């Protein structure tokens, strides 16, 4: 239906305020099919807000957001239908606490896509296998480690066959020894051609996996470049400061 040269995600001149705080300043960016775009920047620079505007968990004041060239509907059934096409993974996993892991993955395809029970289950098991938590399928989220919960959350998002995936600091709430297992699932996804927009502080991951790095500061995109160029030769002073501040740790 859509030509491959239409970006999967496109933001045009997006502005947003929280009260008097100008959190997003004239943001324009696009993510093409199969592309992995990583957003980095200091705390409070608006990365999460940007990520959340893409599926309209946050509204915007002005500008346009398009999914495969179609503007995001403002509300209602049409908005819900658009959200189905964009998977989202949160810092705090947000698995449904009253459901088992398997039920978490099956819930949306069953309720929303009206998949029959058998197909939905088979697909969910395949996805849980793929992210390596199939053996946890009958436990509830609270019985899993953070890394396992986050991988299950990725499986839950994938079960809707999204055209793109948003990740908002998916490893920031994890103990260091679990970060790797989540990043490796994400690396695999990228390798399989998933279109991804990722907010992260994992610079090595960004270096290895990103096609493009976007550096944000104070609500604006300050720099946009390939990871090689960005990490080796940051252009702006703010990017230089940011990179040196994180390499100190």
């Amino acid at each position, binding site marked *: 239906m859509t030509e491959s040269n239409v970006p999967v995600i496109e933001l045009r001149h997006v502005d947003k305020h929280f009260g008097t705080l100008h959190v997003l300043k004239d943001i324009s960016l696009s993510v093409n099919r199969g592309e992995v775009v990583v957003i980095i920047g200091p705390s409070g620079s608006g990365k999460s807000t940007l990520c959340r505007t893409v599926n309209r968990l946050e509204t915007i004041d002005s500008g346009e957001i398009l999914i495969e060239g179609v503007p995001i509907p403002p509300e209602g059934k049409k908005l*819900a*239908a658009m959200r189905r096409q964009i*998977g989202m993974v*949160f810092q705090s996993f*947000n698995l*449904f*606490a009253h459901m088992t892991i398997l039920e978490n993955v099956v*819930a*949306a395809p069953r309720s929303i896509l009206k998949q029959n029970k058998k197909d939905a289950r088979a697909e969910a098991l395949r996805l849980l296998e793929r992210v390596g938590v199939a053996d946890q399928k009958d436990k*509830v989220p609270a019985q899993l480690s953070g890394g396992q919960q986050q991988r299950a959350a990725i499986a839950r998002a994938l079960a809707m066959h999204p055209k793109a995936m948003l990740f908002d600091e998916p490893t920031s709430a994890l103990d260091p020894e679990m970060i790797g297992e989540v990043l490796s699932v994400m690396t695999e996804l990228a390798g399989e051609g998933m279109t991804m927009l990722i907010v992260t502080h994992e610079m090595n991951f960004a270096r290895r996996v990103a096609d493009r790095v976007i550096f944000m500061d104070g609500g604006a995109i300050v720099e946009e470049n390939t990871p090689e160029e960005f990490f080796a030769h940051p252009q702006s002073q703010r990017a230089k400061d940011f990179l040196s501040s994180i390499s100190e740790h």
Partner: protein
Amino acid sequence: MSISALLDKYGSLYLQAMLTTWRLTVISFAGAMAIGLIITVIRVCPIKPLRYLGDFYVQIFRNIPGAAMLILLVYALPYLKLNFPYETCVLIATIMIPSAFCSEHLMSGMNTIAPGQIEAARALGFSFFQMIRRIVIPQALRSAVLPLTNLLVATMLTTSLASQVPMRPRDLTGIVSYINTRDVGGVLAFAISAALYCLTALLLGQLGGWIDRKVRILR
């Protein structure tokens, strides 16, 4: 009269009264849960005037005394050409009042749901009703088992309003005044009813505790 004499003479009436109280309780609680659920959904729906309407309903029925409501139903409704049987009047009161409390318990049950789960549901593309049905109500119910058990007991006690109207068969409270007008049952006649209320409440409490342990959400 002694307890045994009372039970000899009125045992079967007590049994019938207990079954009547149980029946009223089951119907009232089922109705209260159904209406309470609907009111709760209205109170969180995206349409603001409806939300206010839901809050208004709860404010009214949470604060009206049961006896006052029964008097209104029995004496005022006929002026509106609505002639309900006495039992229906009792049931309207014993459904509507607990339904307001049911909604309050469900609202606080909802507050235990982490906002992130609602965001996740929206991000997955759940519609409002799908989210309510699959995510919100199940968790609200499961977190509210103990307060809802208390409400069930309170609803049973509220069904004693039935004793205020000439309804047949009599309930556990109605039977006491009946016996005391025919015999000198005194406080003993009341004690038997009280014991039966207590016994039922204890059983319900046990049941509620058991259900709570089974469905409690691990966090």
